[in-house]
């Protein structure tokens, strides 16, 4: 699937290009209001394109209404028809595409069995749990044998525990699906686990794309850096030395010219007095706040650069950290990575 989507609204313009191979899962990742769902609805034909095109299997489908596109869509709150049983919900698509009632029900029953809900075929949607409803929604979308599968925040409505389980099941179903898949999410974990490739959308444009590991290692915007949990700065490199504002950092990579520098919060160490040794990678910061972060404490630092530092609770107690306090921070050069901006 190749698409160039342009949707113009009074206060917002979406303009992105998407290229998804059959069998590939691409996640559109971005903050709320970035235009991810708009892009998905445009692909589905639920809103018209202002400009651009959608080509699927060599056919331009953007001129067709939603019901004539070879797509399947899973909505954020599933939108299972409340007056139909799970089986009839799944059989709905094949029925609309001219399959006989018996045949459609057979297809639906087989799909429900695949998602492990054979025993709930006659249940109405309101009798299903969130995770079950999600699986019925996936089965319903797959029942029409779409060439393009669209998923809008497929796990957002689930509680943390169910989410874990449903996520791995969804991953299995997506792996078995032969068509192209576009998944919208604002959860980096969902994106990393489910997608072969991430496309990060901010303010209606693509700001970064790549395989999950690449995006996680080399974020290019503050939003992505926050998602993947890295401190990110723009600087100018001269060999191993990178200048970020007034701060001089030593990086593990040799670069020249404008670069991004990133290091994990766990690579930052804090001291009450200036540490000995190299003057690089050391700066004086002010503590802006301290919060729990997993097993560690995350310290928010301001100063020449804004940074997060993850340290152990014991270290917090030992250093007697309080907001507003001046402190020395250092980061290991081996964990500071520079890459072209």
């Amino acid at each position, binding site marked *: 699937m190749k698409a160039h989507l342009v949707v113009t609204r009074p206060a917002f313009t979406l303009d992105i290009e998407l290229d998804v191979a059959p069998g590939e899962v691409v996640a559109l990742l971005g903050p709320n209001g970035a235009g991810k769902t708009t892009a998905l609805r445009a692909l589905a*034909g639920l809103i018209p394109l202002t400009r651009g095109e959608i080509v699927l299997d060599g056919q331009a489908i953007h001129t067709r209404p*939603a019901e004539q*596109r070879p797509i399947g*869509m899973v909505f954020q709150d599933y*939108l299972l028809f409340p007056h139909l049983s799970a089986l009839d919900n799944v059989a709905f698509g094949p029925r*609309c*595409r001219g399959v006989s009632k018996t045949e459609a029900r057979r297809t639906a029953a087989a799909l429900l069995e695949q998602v492990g809900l054979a025993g709930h075929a006659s249940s109405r949607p309101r009798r299903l749990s969130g995770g079950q409803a999600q699986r019925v929604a996936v089965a319903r979308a797959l029942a*029409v044998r779409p060439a393009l599968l669209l998923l809008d925040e497929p796990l957002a409505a689930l509680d943390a525990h169910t989410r874990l389980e449903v996520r791995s099941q969804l991953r299995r179903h997506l792996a078995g699906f032969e068509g192209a898949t576009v998944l919208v999410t604002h959860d980096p974990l969902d994106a990393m686990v489910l997608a072969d490739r991430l496309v990060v959308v901010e303010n209606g444009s693509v700001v970064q794309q790549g395989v999950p590991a690449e995006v996680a290692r080399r974020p290019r915007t503050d939003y992505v850096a926050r998602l993947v949990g890295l401190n990110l700065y723009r600087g100018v490199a001269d060999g191993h030395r990178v200048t970020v504002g007034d701060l001089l950092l030593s990086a593990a990579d040799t670069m020249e010219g404008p670069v991004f520098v990133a290091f994990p919060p766990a690579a930052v160490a804090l001291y009450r007095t200036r540490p000995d040794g190299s003057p690089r990678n050391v700066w004086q910061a002010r503590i802006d706040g301290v919060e729990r972060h997993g097993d560690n404490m995350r310290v928010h630092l301001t100063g020449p650069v804004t940074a997060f530092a993850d340290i152990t609770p014991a270290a917090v107690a030992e250093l007697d950290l309080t907001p507003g306090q001046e402190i020395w921070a250092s980061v290991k050069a081996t964990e500071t990575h520079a890459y072209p901006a």
Partner: protein
Amino acid sequence: MLVVPAVLGLAFLVLPLAGLLVRAPWSTLPQRLAEPQVLEALRLSLVTATIATAVCLLLGVPLAWLLARVEFPGRRLVRALVTVPLVLPPVVGGVALLLVLGRRGLIGQWLESTFGVTLPFTTAGVVVAEAFVAMPFLVISVEGALRGADRRFEEAAATLGASRMTVFRRVTLPMIMPGVVAGAVLCWARALGEFGATITFAGNFPGTTRTMPLAVYLALETEPEAAIVLSLVLLAVSVIILASLRDRWLS
């Protein structure tokens, strides 16, 4: 301070009905009810009100859909026009129907010359008069239900390949069914009680156009006790319908 007018209002609504029950000739009720004229009027009323409701459903549900779902120029005007019969005195409605569908009427003339069909002063005319007066109730109720329905279900159906007609038939209609039923009940009740438009457009012929309300009015002049009996029957029918549908649809 609000309790006093509230109680007065309640009394105002309930007392006339109580009066009806108090003054009813209970001892002779069975014989009076079994009188052929009563049964005939009751049968005519039930049949015409039911057919009128069916006509309203057939035409009114698509009209409500048009008003709720399709953007077109002049939609507000059309919605206003639809509600006109609601505020129009029924007698005026009857006169208007005569002018259009009467023998000399704009369409009535053509109907008679082409199909040999005349509507005024026939049972079909009763249905027309009742449908004219009752349809707005259905349209408004169904349109409200359509506006309240989550349109994203319709979008979901479209992504599954459902045409507009299939979406309407298999998704929209089942989801707004309570609104349709409520509208149909209102519509039916209004048609059952129709008087002004019916007597103007369809006249007052026993057996063909004399419905219960007409019979009540007529009996009041000659035989007041019969009028009370007929009124009780209308009241009972209304209450029974309302009560039987209430639990399932109207709550």
